[in-house]
């Protein structure tokens, strides 16, 4: 009873007067500390970089490497960044988008209003890049995004090519590059020139199937294109499409699938005896685990390659080459490298380079530094000042794209070989493009 009573009085023990006395004391101590010569390394306020990425939810595979990437970057930034005469410590505040555009927008607003970040980075599909960019544009916070085809980022946000955006910049390849890469890659192999296309009925698929999408581009390259149309994203059965593929006798099948639908489709193709020479399902076979899930039938499928361990680039921040970075990732996680991890790293690297060149931490100065970027990143050169095909729009920087094919691997079940590099000859070929083998 006694102790209970005591316990209750203690919090009340600090009365108004005592509180004032204590707080005055701390304030005085703070004032003294400020007048003394700074004993700490960093006298300046920390620079805050906000980062939004899908760590959980359906597209979490894109964010798998986030922790690893941040660890490396934080190590490289231990010494802080010098802006003007002051060295600022750097704090990267990471937020999970939960693979949800509304959530991405919400956490971006939190980063802007509560954490007061100086610069924002975001990556992985329109569901992350677009809402975060929109928040930043609205609030006047500089933002750099990546890993989303640039048309989806720019036109998806109703951008006007003549005006562009003020605060938001993006680097990645575009849909036109993918279609060109596929068509030119297919041409390196003799086929009957018949291409059948099929796409999911979602924003990606509708854009790819449309008048400015892939089929017209394939036609302009001389292919006989038969469009099998859009199919629902959750489809469990593709026998209707396979009947058409067989009827059309297509040597080349190309389509945007989600991984589970492609697994179903490709198994049914085998059951129904449809054996194309070329099967190009971008997106479905982006991750090596998705190819492993196909079993032996994963071998020979082809896709676009944005980045690989053999890309001849190195990080301007850490000095690591693509190969070294991938090896470190495998050593740390036991997992095979994937294409998004390079872009995750580059996204933050570019932000750091911008801050290093910025005259101050004012948003206008940071934006000026972004526009003036000419940086060699882990995924290749990034610049927003060149114009031409590299910068189709002032806020967009394109990155090189090559063609790849999954082949039997050495350390892991499958390796992604670069088999076509016509559009970016600086990226070395791993092997020749081959027809799919059926036993």
């Amino acid at each position, binding site marked *: 009873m006694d102790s209970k009573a005591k316990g209750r009085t203690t919090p009340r023990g600090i009365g108004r007067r005592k509180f004032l006395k204590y707080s005055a004391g701390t304030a005085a101590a703070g004032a003294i500390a400020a007048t003394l010569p700074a004993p700490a390394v960093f006298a300046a306020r920390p620079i805050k970089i906000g980062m939004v990425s899908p760590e*959980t*939810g*359906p*597209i*979490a*595979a894109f*964010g*798998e490497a986030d922790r690893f990437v941040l660890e490396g970057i934080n190590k490289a930034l231990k010494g802080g960044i010098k802006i003007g005469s002051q060295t600022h410590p750097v704090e990267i505040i990471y937020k999970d988008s939960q693979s949800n555009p509304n959530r991405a927008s919400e956490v971006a607003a939190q980063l802007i209003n509560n954490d007061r970040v100086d610069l924002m980075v975001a990556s992985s599909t329109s569901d992350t890049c677009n809402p975060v960019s929109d928040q930043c544009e609205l609030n006047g916070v500089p933002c750099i995004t990546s890993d989303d085809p640039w048309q989806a980022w720019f036109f998806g946000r109703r951008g006007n090519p003549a005006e562009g955006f003020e605060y938001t910049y993006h680097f990645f390849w575009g849909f036109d590059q993918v279609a060109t890469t596929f068509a030119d890659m297919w041409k390196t192999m003799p086929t009957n020139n018949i291409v059948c296309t*099929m796409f999911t*009925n979602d924003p990606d698929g509708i854009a790819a199937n449309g008048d400015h999408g892939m089929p017209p581009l394939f036609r302009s390259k001389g292919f006989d294109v038969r469009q*099998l*149309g*859009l*199919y*629902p994203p*959750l*489809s*469990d*059965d593709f*026998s*209707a*499409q396979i*009947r058409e593929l067989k009827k059309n006798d297509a040597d080349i099948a190309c389509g945007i699938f989600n*991984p*589970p*639908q492609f*697994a*179903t489709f490709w*198994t*049914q193709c*085998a*059951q*129904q*005896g449809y054996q194309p020479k070329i099967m190009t399902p971008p997106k479905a076979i982006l*991750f090596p*685990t*998705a190819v492993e*899930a*196909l*079993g032996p*039938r994963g071998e020979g499928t082809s896709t676009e390659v944005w980045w690989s361990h053999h890309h001849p680039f190195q990080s301007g921040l850490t000095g690591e080459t693509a190969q070294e970075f991938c090896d470190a990732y495998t050593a740390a996680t036991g997992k095979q490298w994937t294409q998004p991890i390079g872009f995750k790293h580059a996204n933050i690297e570019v932000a750091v380079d911008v801050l290093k060149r910025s005259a101050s931490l004012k948003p206008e100065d940071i934006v000026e530094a972004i526009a003036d970027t000419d940086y060699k990143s882990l995924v290749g050169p990034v610049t927003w000042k060149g114009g031409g095909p590299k910068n189709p729009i002032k806020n967009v920087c394109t990155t090189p794209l090559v063609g790849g094919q999954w082949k039997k691997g050495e350390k892991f079940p499958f390796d992604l070989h670069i088999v076509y590099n016509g559009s970016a000859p600086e990226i070395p070929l791993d092997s020749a493009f081959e027809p799919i083998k059926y036993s």
Partner: protein
Amino acid sequence: MEWLNVLIQGSLLGGLYALFAIGLSLSFGIMRLVNIAHGDLIVLCAYVALIVVQGTGLDPVSSLIIVLPVMFVAGYLLQRGLLNFTLEGGLLPPLLVTFGISVIIQNALLLGFGAYTHRLQQGAIETQSLVLPGDIAIGVYPVIIFAVAVLSIAGLQLLFFKTKIGRAFRAASDDADTAELMGINKRHLFALAMAIAMIFTALAAVLFAIRTNFDPASGPTRLILAFEAVIIGGLGSMWGTLIGGMILGIAQAVGAALSPTWQILAGHLAFLVILIILPSGLFPRTRD
């Protein structure tokens, strides 16, 4: 001939949907439990099978020797330890609790296995096919799935109508409180029903995981198909569930043959039409 092919492929797909629906049909029919987590439980079972396959080197189908008993026990504990407590307060508590379970399963799997997709591999049988006259190729594996669905439902039918425990199930389904007055331990009986439901869920999961990819987020899309199959067939009727699955599958196949865009929509439309004409499904057995 082409339409015959459409019909065959659609029916085979329906077998898969019926298999998804058996577990749901049981918990719905006996306990009036609307199990929102059913799709995620299917995915959970697939991951359990993945662990067994990777740990023991067994092939996926043989892994059922371990997976089925494990899920039987898990189902019993889930019902006895948690879901039984939600059944007293009307329709909403089980909905909310199973919704919570669904979220927990998805995130726990993401934490444990990452977001990457997996598939179980059974080897050559996956792609073997029988070619019928008229150039109709039928996959051996879809036929196996269909056969398993039919046999499962026949087995359950025997259990319900030829055994003592089956009579208890039916009694509890008709009026759980009166059944309890007759000396049936409702809590134990419901837990047993969930345990049996989980056996068929696990069976569906392994066959599904051989057929296509799964990842932690692929559960909810399975739920709606299972629901529709149960509702079309009529509450509490196992054969109805099979017919419900087949109607869904055939409707989808016909829709896809007309235009690929209509595939899923056609299934949902068939569901709606039947719901309008026969609100309690084709072969309703239970009365509420």
